[in-house]
């Protein structure tokens, strides 16, 4: 696209408000013509804002041709940074030359900026000038030059920097040390290890800020490779926390199996409070040889170290760690148990599953309990038969673990095993665990469980009967409903009450089950006990609300049928909720009567506005206006009043 005069004019305005998207690539197809247009902007008397953004565009499209237009801007404190955006990006020696030339003309911050750009471009031909700038009276300039020399690297830069380490003013020395460290990295990249070590060591010995020392220590260790171990150990033993810190960091980086070995030896020598820290560092070494060290730490010794090691095994451990972890998981210490179990649950690999399963038949006591729990937590379905047979174990702890595991991975046929166990036990704890497991399996396996649950619904033990009913309620369906309805007729009040409670929430599970609706209606209208009536009514209203087969008019009619039973505000609110979601003539009329009760009037008003605010078949506009006017007049809620007025204005 050719930049027209109009574009040039508009560009200023655009830039004024341009936090907006600018798709340069789309607006400006590639090519030299565009560059010339952009150069023309820089040479024109365009506003600075326009020139600024033009520089950014030249960062993409500029070539050597742009440099003469950009270079003069380096001395402009408002545009210098923009010009450097382009000059840093434009490849080739012409841009390098422009920046070098500017170095000779500028002072202060602008000079620092140019030096920084030279550093980014790694312009070797700038070294002489930068060496001179090392002695600049302005510490910012000298510091920038030092760092730039470090980035560029090479023998001349290194020599100048090491010389300045001792002689540079205090304000500059940190940057000189940084330059030395950068130079050393350059040496390492070029396989000049000896030079790198010399540079690092000079910084270590220089009077520079401590952070530079730490960087040099790290570099000196890494550059020496295995020979750096003594220096590394020195840091790990240092009283200075910062040196310990850089030691721990470097222990993670210094490669080599011999280094791993040396660190493992040091682990035993270090003070106890530092051992977990070093162990964590060793574990991060990405070396398979660390596993024995971690395993050993997990096996015995100070508790902190053991727990650290056990946690590390989550990511480093394998099947060889299982005996140690099982040992810890069966110890009396709760923290160790928890850590070891967590690690066993997360230890990767199918071979781990196989190993754990193989141990199960011979296991006894606490170990067996742990193994059964692991079968569940790791979801090892092959272990299900062994776990199911453990339901017969004489040890209550093992039975409990088996119940928990079956609740996770059990299938419908395990329902029968659980029911048998339930019928045998008197322990409330065990019964609660089995109840939980039956609910879980019933929810997961559905109707397949019903026949296994039947003995419970026929039990004379009320508690078992109720457990069976709850499990059936989770399964749902006609057979389950029949069992619950039958329980409502039970001679046992406790069973009867529980059955009513279960039925009252039935629609949650089977909202389309009309049989449930009928049973709830019966309760609501004919139950002998008042609480049963209330629960029946609530369940029925909930059933109506969730029923998608009923039309809005049918819902309103059914609410009307039970209106005489709806006496308390709690149920009135439920009725309002049903009606509010079923816009119809019947709903509107019922709501106007419900609004007569001050306890629920505001809820009813809101529902009326919701319904009358829209057109409804069979309701005249006059009637809509009438009810909305009533709400606007009577409601004590300003929000509802406003909504009513707004709705009124919409009834035309």
């Amino acid at each position, binding site marked *: 696209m050719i930049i027209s005069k109009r574009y040039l004019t508009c560009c200023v305005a655009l*830039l004024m408000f341009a936090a907006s998207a600018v798709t340069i690539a789309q607006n400006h197809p590639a090519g030299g013509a565009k560059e010339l247009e952009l150069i023309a902007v820089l040479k024109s008397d365009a506003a600075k804002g326009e020139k600024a953004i033009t520089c950014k565009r030249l960062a993409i499209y500029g070539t050597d041709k742009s440099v003469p237009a950009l270079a003069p801007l380096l001395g402009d404190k408002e545009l210098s940074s923009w010009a450097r955006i382009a000059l840093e990006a434009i490849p080739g020696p012409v841009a390098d030359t422009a920046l070098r030339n500017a170095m000779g003309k500028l002072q202060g911050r*602008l000079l620092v900026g140019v030096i*920084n750009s030279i550093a980014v471009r790694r312009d070797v031909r700038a070294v002489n000038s930068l060496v001179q700038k090392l002695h600049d009276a302005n510490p910012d300039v000298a510091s920038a030059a030092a760092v730039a020399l470090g980035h560029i690297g090479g023998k001349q830069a290194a020599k100048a920097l090491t010389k300045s380490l001792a002689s540079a003013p205090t304000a500059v020395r940190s940057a000189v040390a940084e330059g030395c460290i950068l130079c050393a990295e350059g040496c390492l990249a070029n396989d000049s290890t000896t030079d790198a070590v010399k540079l690092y060591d000079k910084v270590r010995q220089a009077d520079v800020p401590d952070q530079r020392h730490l960087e040099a220590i790290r570099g000196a260790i890494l550059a020496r490779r295995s020979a750096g171990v003594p220096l590394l150990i020195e840091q790990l033993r240092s009283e200075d926390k910062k040196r310990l810190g850089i030691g721990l960091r470097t222990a993670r980086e210094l490669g080599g199996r011999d280094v791993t070995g040396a660190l493992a030896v040091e682990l035993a020598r270090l003070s106890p409070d530092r051992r977990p820290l070093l162990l964590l560092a060793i574990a991060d070494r990405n070396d398979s040889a660390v596993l024995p060290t971690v395993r050993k730490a997990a096996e015995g010794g100070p508790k902190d170290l053991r727990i650290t090691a056990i946690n590390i095994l989550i990511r480093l451990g394998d099947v060889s760690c299982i005996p140690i972890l099982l040992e810890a998981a069966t110890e009396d210490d709760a923290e160790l148990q928890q850590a070891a179990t967590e690690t066993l649950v997360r230890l990767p690999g199918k071979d781990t599953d196989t190993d754990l399963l193989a141990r199960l038949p011979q296991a006894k006591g606490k170990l067996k309990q742990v193994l059964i729990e692991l079968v569940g937590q790791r979801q090892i379905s092959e272990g299900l038969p062994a776990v199911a047979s453990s339901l017969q174990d004489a040890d209550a702890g093992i039975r409990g673990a088996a119940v928990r595991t079956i609740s996770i991975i059990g299938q419908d046929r395990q329902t029968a095993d659980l029911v048998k166990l339930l019928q045998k036990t008197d322990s409330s704890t065990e019964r609660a665990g089995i109840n939980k497991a039956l609910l879980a399996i019933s929810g997961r396996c559905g109707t397949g469980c019903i026949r296994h649950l039947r003995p419970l619904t026929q039990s004379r033990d009320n508690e078992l009967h109720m457990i069976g009913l709850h499990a059936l309620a989770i399964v749902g369906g006609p057979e389950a409903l029949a069992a619950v309805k039958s329980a409502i007729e039970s001679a046992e009040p406790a069973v009867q009450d529980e059955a009513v409670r279960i039925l009252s929430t039935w629609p949650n599970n089977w909202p389309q089950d009309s049989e449930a609706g009928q049973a709830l209606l019966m309760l609501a209208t004919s139950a002998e006990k008042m609480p049963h009536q209330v629960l029946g009514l609530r369940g029925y209203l909930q059933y109506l609300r969730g029923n998608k087969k009923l039309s809005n008019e049918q819902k309103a009619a059914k609410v009307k049928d039970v209106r005489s039973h709806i006496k308390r505000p709690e149920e009135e609110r439920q009725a309002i909720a049903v009606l509010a979601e079923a816009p119809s003539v019947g709903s509107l009329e019922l709501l106007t009567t419900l609004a007569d009760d001050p306890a629920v009037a505001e809820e009813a008003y809101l529902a009326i506005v919701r319904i009358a605010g829209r057109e409804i078949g069979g309701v005249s506009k006059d009637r809509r206006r009438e009810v909305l006017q009533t709400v606007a007049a009577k409601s004590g809620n300003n929000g509802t009043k406003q909504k009513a007025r707004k709705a009124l204005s919409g009834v035309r």
Partner: protein
Amino acid sequence: MCKERVSLNRRRFLKTAVQTGVCLAIPQVIPGTALGKDGSVAPSERIVLGAIGIGNRGRYDLSCFLREPDLRCVAVCDVRGDNRKRAKDQVDAQNGDKDCATYIDMRELLARDDIDAVLIATGPNWHVTAATMAARAGKDVYCEKPCTKNIAQSLVLADVFHRTGRVFQAGTQRRSLPNFAYAIELARTGKLGKLLTVHAHPGGLGTKMSGWLPAEPEPPREQVDWDMYLGPAAWRPYTRKLMNAFHFEKGGGLVGGGCLEWGSHCVDLCQLANDADDTAPVEYEPVNGQLHARYANGVKLVMRNDGWLPMGSCPVRFEGETGWVETGDNAEFGASSQSLLLRRGTKIPGYPADFHVRNFLDCVKTRALTRANANAACWAHIACHAANIALFLDRKVKYDPKKNEFIGDEQANRLRSEALREPWRI
């Protein structure tokens, strides 16, 4: 951009970072007693914090830090007077004194020897510059995201923290939240089968450019230090409209937008799910309002704004050969099978940063790599920047993560870096 110099053992160090990231859902690795967290903490064992850039987000982060018993904040720094006052009041209230120092210029705060670590929540324009300055000053750094403005800065960030040995935590706190960690663990441990596609919600894929607005009278320095606010951003006159640090120069002058604001979270999570904390996708292509990328291992990254389950903001989805999982900021899950969610753990909605802050403080003590360490942040940001460049150029680009350059694409390569305003450097 000139070619990047390979730092000492960078590849090795990166691999370490990846390893550390595997066990995300685990509790504190080192026992609390060894860290001095058992009840009261001796003053000598406390981490001393300075907070830089303390606007709304910064004060939230700061509140997470202040809740930790082994931390004491002693100084706050902001270019805005109102922010300084609010942050000082917050810290003083916690400390029960009036001693919290205030600074306009972060260099003065960084020069204090008594400060161990800094929180940087300045706004994206300053993040990488402030973070690298802090590292060179010997401070450990918790830095809000997006951490960098371009690819070159991302690489320098990793290099500087590598060189200085300082601890870095990017403010991508979802790495420390159980639901995201659990979904990632499912992807990484083969529970979904071979991983095929990872999906990220970048929250808008537009690209933006911070411009040069009409000059307005500059307020007194005590109220707003405009020069320090601009910091490394190219110069422009004071304008109140640009004072929203949250948006100013986000993701770079030419290529900001949702990619960086949200991508630094959700693309970051996808990176981790794909065990890609040491690399980035090799291809990026805008496709019908989405951005499709591909990793060298064949896994596809899809950045899209719609079609998500109702999981709140910042959702991610991981799909494997045998299953899938999706989660978001409400901490709910969608999954191909409920059995996948058996060990989903505690539900913690609302993306709090407390766990992430705790992980940072623990690593300050152990010197271990944080969950969102500089290397991980580097590559997640590179993925976002490369995606942004593809969107900006509106075409497919190919990236070589070993050479850190776009293949045969000079325009894209020139967008990898941008000069900083004097006197700032990274």
